[in-house]
């Protein structure tokens, strides 16, 4: 299982680097999907199959599809790719690199120096997740559902068509 974990982690890291360095937006998104899928695999290996499935369904399957959808609608040509590749060169890299170096340092410290929080692995069943969600965390679940409801109402309001406001094109 350890080998699986390390391979998935390596894939995640490499694909995430590719996300940042791609000039073509669709390629970047595809690498991001791969990255999300490998993270899902890591969750699975760590004993959280439910979260892994949700990662695939919600992040890789729904949200990223919307991203791809939007980019398809924009129909970016080679010009946009060229512009992106210009932005990606030179001193752009310094700031993010420093921040990432700090993060890597922290992670290395945790991995070698600190304690291992995930030692005795046990598989988290969907039942446990739901018991936790609707037990101690019921408040947060309800609050976030209110937030989603608000979002739904707002989306409906934005998409609403007042009668007589917009004339339907005659077909």
């Amino acid at each position, binding site marked *: 299982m350890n080998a699986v974990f390390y391979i998935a982690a390596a894939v995640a890291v490499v694909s995430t680097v590719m996300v940042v360095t791609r000039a073509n937006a*669709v390629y970047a998104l*595809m690498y991001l999907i791969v990255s999300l899928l490998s993270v899902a695999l890591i969750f699975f290996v760590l004993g959280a*199959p439910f979260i892994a*499935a949700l990662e695939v369904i919600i992040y890789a399957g*729904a949200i990223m599809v919307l991203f791809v959808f939007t980019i*398809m609608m924009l129909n970016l040509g080679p010009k946009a790719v060229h512009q992106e590749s210009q932005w990606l060169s030179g001193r752009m890299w310094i700031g993010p690199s420093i921040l990432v170096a700090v993060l890597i340092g922290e992670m290395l410290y945790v991995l070698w120096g600190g304690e291992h929080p995930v030692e005795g692995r046990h598989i988290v*069943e*969907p039942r446990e997740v739901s018991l936790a969600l609707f037990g101690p965390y019921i408040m947060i679940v309800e609050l976030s559902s209110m937030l989603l409801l608000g979002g739904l109402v707002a989306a409906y309001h934005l998409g609403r068509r007042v009668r007589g406001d917009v004339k339907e094109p005659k077909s």
Partner: protein
Amino acid sequence: MSGILWHLANVAGVLGVLLTLAGALIMVERRLLALWQDRYGPNRVGPFGLLQVAADMIKIFTKEDWIPPFSDKPVFIIAPCIIMGTVLMSFAVIPFAPAVGVADLDIGLLFFLGMSSLGVYSVALAGWSSNNKYALLGGLRATAQMLSYEVFMALSLMGVVMLAGSFNLRTIVNAQQHMWFCIPQFLGLVVFTVAGIAETHRVPFDLPEAESELVAGFHSEYSGMKFGMFFVGEYLAITLISALIVTLFFGGWQGPILPPLVWFALKTAVLICGFVLLRASLPRLRYDQLMSFGWKIMLPVALLNLLITGAIVVARH
């Protein structure tokens, strides 16, 4: 050791049967459509036209596999692989019989949902990478359609999950020993069937590849075996949806006298014929009808079903 061998045999058997079946289904569909339209269909090659499958395969393998110079080559090649991959992966969690089946996942149903949502990329990327306006329109339509129908596809299944108390498909089949879920979950069955047809973009939800308006939709630019993969992917998806309906609503492998595997195959075959019958009899929807049907009728029905099932489950406790 024998455990691993059994496992490998399972994987190889399932893959072999599925890929053969996908080829055979092309011929079965043509013959069935012909039957319902008072024709004969392909009946020349071999006995009863059975070798038509082989002829089709030879044709599609030897056809020129053309990649348009204006397309985005790597994405163009990956797109058909995604649909075959995700559909075949989904079959991993289907319990064909008590001892037959590739994986026994606790999150089997979620795995299927995840795979089907990844399948959307296939059509979206195929449409985008073809760099053709019809393909792009088809891809956009397919993406929007699959995204919105996935929402209540998942919701319609939650009633089954509540009754069985598990995402594991084997547990769900075992929970139907006394009563198939098609009776208490009739609404769920209807919603899931509709969503399943939309997911496989079959008639009457075949707008992404509507010939009369979009040439062939997202696979307009595909030829040879890449087109064949979309084609086979569609038939595999039909088989998958039928197998899932059988597993979730019609008691899976359960049935008297005959061996479990035969029961499973029989039920799935009947449902596949149902898919073909739909194609033979129903016209295509308009795009706005499709969307409003999904969001304004199917989603509330799925939610209602969820609510009622939840109330009953809670009341029984």
